[in-house]
């Protein structure tokens, strides 16, 4: 518990009063999040609650209408999304977005774009520094392929993988960029119970052994309640409740939002 006390002083990601308006539609209204280092934080809520919109604001796909987003103390609201991901926030998508016609291994090499020597001349002439960084990227990719059980598929086209494998590849592709905060948008959607259990185990392992904090959107309540350290509930764009899994699952408002009033 001592680590938690330390973390409370400096949270990894601090979101305040986040508001996103599309014309007359208020999609997200004054949402606040605080994500501690080394924790798994979840955002839940009914369909259309604005969870993915929050994700899109955090990762720079949308420029939030109002509010502040602080990552390691630095304000990143309104930054371009490639800049944000370079700072160490990497996400997956609700619908898998792999580079479908590239091989599994290439998917992981592309993701390490900025870690490889991208100087044109040194690449053309295969200088030693280029070969070294390229080999490092290859080894790093190999390690992660092994980790998500896709080593045998390395040279297959990504679109030929089974759906569960594609999900795992997408997570591996995020991990090779060496992120600090991994954001997963419904990673269990479309997975069977066995695959969901494996995912559960994978996420916990990423947190414990790979120094990454996780922000999760998920509808699978068994997964969310089992894995999360802290949960935020959003309903119709506004924060509804927050707390530890046991508090949230006992909260009357949350039950009402999910099941409707009797």
């Amino acid at each position: 518990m001592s680590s938690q006390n330390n973390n409370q002083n400096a949270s990894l990601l601090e979101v305040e009063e986040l508001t996103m308006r599309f014309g007359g539609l208020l999609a997200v209204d004054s949402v606040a999040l605080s994500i501690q280092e080394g924790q798994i934080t979840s955002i839940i809520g009914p369909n259309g609650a604005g969870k993915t919109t929050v994700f899109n604001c955090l990762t720079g796909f949308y420029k939030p209408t109002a509010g502040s987003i602080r990552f390691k103390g630095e304000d990143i609201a309104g930054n371009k999304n490639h800049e944000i991901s370079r700072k160490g926030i990497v996400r997956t998508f609700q619908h898998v977005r792999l580079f479908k016609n590239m091989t599994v291994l290439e998917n992981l090499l592309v993701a390490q774009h900025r870690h490889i020597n991208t100087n044109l001349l040194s690449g053309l002439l295969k200088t030693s520094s280029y070969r070294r960084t390229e080999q490092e990227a290859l080894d790093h990719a190999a390690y992660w392929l092994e980790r998500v059980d896709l080593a045998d598929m390395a040279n297959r086209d990504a679109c030929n993988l089974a759906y569960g494998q594609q999900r795992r590849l997408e997570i591996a592709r995020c991990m090779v960029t060496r992120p600090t905060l991994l954001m997963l948008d419904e990673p269990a959607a479309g997975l069977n119970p066995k695959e969901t259990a494996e995912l559960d185990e994978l996420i916990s392992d990423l947190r414990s052994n790979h120094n990454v904090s996780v922000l999760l959107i998920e509808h699978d309540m068994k997964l969310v309640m089992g894995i999360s350290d802290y949960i935020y509930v959003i309903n119709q764009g506004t924060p509804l409740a927050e707390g530890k899994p046991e508090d949230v699952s006992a909260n009357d408002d949350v039950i009402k939002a999910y099941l409707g009033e009797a």
Partner: protein
Amino acid sequence: MTQSKAFNALIPAVLFLLLSIPLMGLQLNQGQIIPTVTLQDNSTLVGIAFSTGFIFLFQLVREKIPFNGSSISNLISSPAQRVPSLHKHDSFKKILTVLLIASLFIWPLFSSRGAVDLGIHILIYVLLGLGLNVVVGLAGLLDLGFVGFYAVGAYGYALLNQYFGLDFWTCLLFSGALAALFGFILGFPVLRLRGDYLAIVTLGFGEIIRILLNNWSGLTGGPNGIGQIPPATLFGIEFSRNASEGGTTFHELLGISYSGSHKVIFLYLIALVITLLTVWVINRLRNMPIGRAWEALREDDIACQSLGMNKTTIKLSAFTIGAMFAGLAGTLFAARMSHISPESFTFIESAMILAIVVLGGMGSQFGVILAAIIIASLPELVRDFEQYRMLMFGVMMVVMMAWRPQGLMPMKRPHIEMRKKELEERAHEAPEATNTRKAQAA
């Protein structure tokens, strides 16, 4: 399986037959008042029959030929027995490539001036195809105004030579750089565009350049174009009959009699070297981070950005590098024709180059080269059928798109071997990770 294989092999053979009989097997007799069409002599027909048989057999056994190290059978077989062919056939492939390149260098010495000139023509199209392949095939940016950069390259040489008297080699560098600059400039307004919108803007750009060249008579000579563009020189040695003031000519230097084909062969060799260099450079680029980034942008630009890649630089680099090769091709074109005018750079040229890329197989270098050879040489080889040229072209495109939409030689994904040893060491370094997993699994 065997039946469908035979059928699959039959299709290209029949296609070949359908195309070659009207294109090569018929003869137009124009001597009489009413031209008649007769069959060609027997040797041509036998040749067509043999070629058809060869295509059928080749398609039948194609999968067993370890081309590029990966065939369909490799994909299906178990992982344990995958990947054997790559290294085994490496040396064989190398020898074959060296022989092929050597023969490309030697053959003009033994053939006619017209054939070598056609060779230059084909090489120019190969260069254009390879350049557009970067933009369309790899980066997935549909560019319908590619001919604009070709025009920039050609006029770059013509104008720099006319006004500043610069020679071919200096202009080659300048034109390449100038076309690249134009590609870069075009890149900016289209950064936000995709698909159809991008195609329309690039189409407009190509037309703007052509119309500018056509109407800016003071600078470019308008529709009359620019003439008397000098051919290339070899370290100041000229290939003309009579040396200019203070110059030396090639035939005087070697003490041989003058022949007009010397300069054609020389330009062919230049074009060949540039093309080979281009093939090498693009091949390297494809396997470098920038090449992978282009392809990733084609596959999914949103995922690309979410992984920290800057869409702007990737797009601009594709436009710039593709345009540079078109600029080089343009300079060669100007040197070959010695007279250029805006009508050489109409939209139909852009469409032709795009057809080369699509026909060859998007992203595939070998396919694009093959398609460039076919598309650039066919009209020249069957001049007698000039009126039916576009008809043939249309039929070919329709048939190809219906039967083989992926192109003649679809792009092969590079097969990369991982170092297994390193992998095991890494696994030992992080045993706690595996242990936790095992524990949780149990």
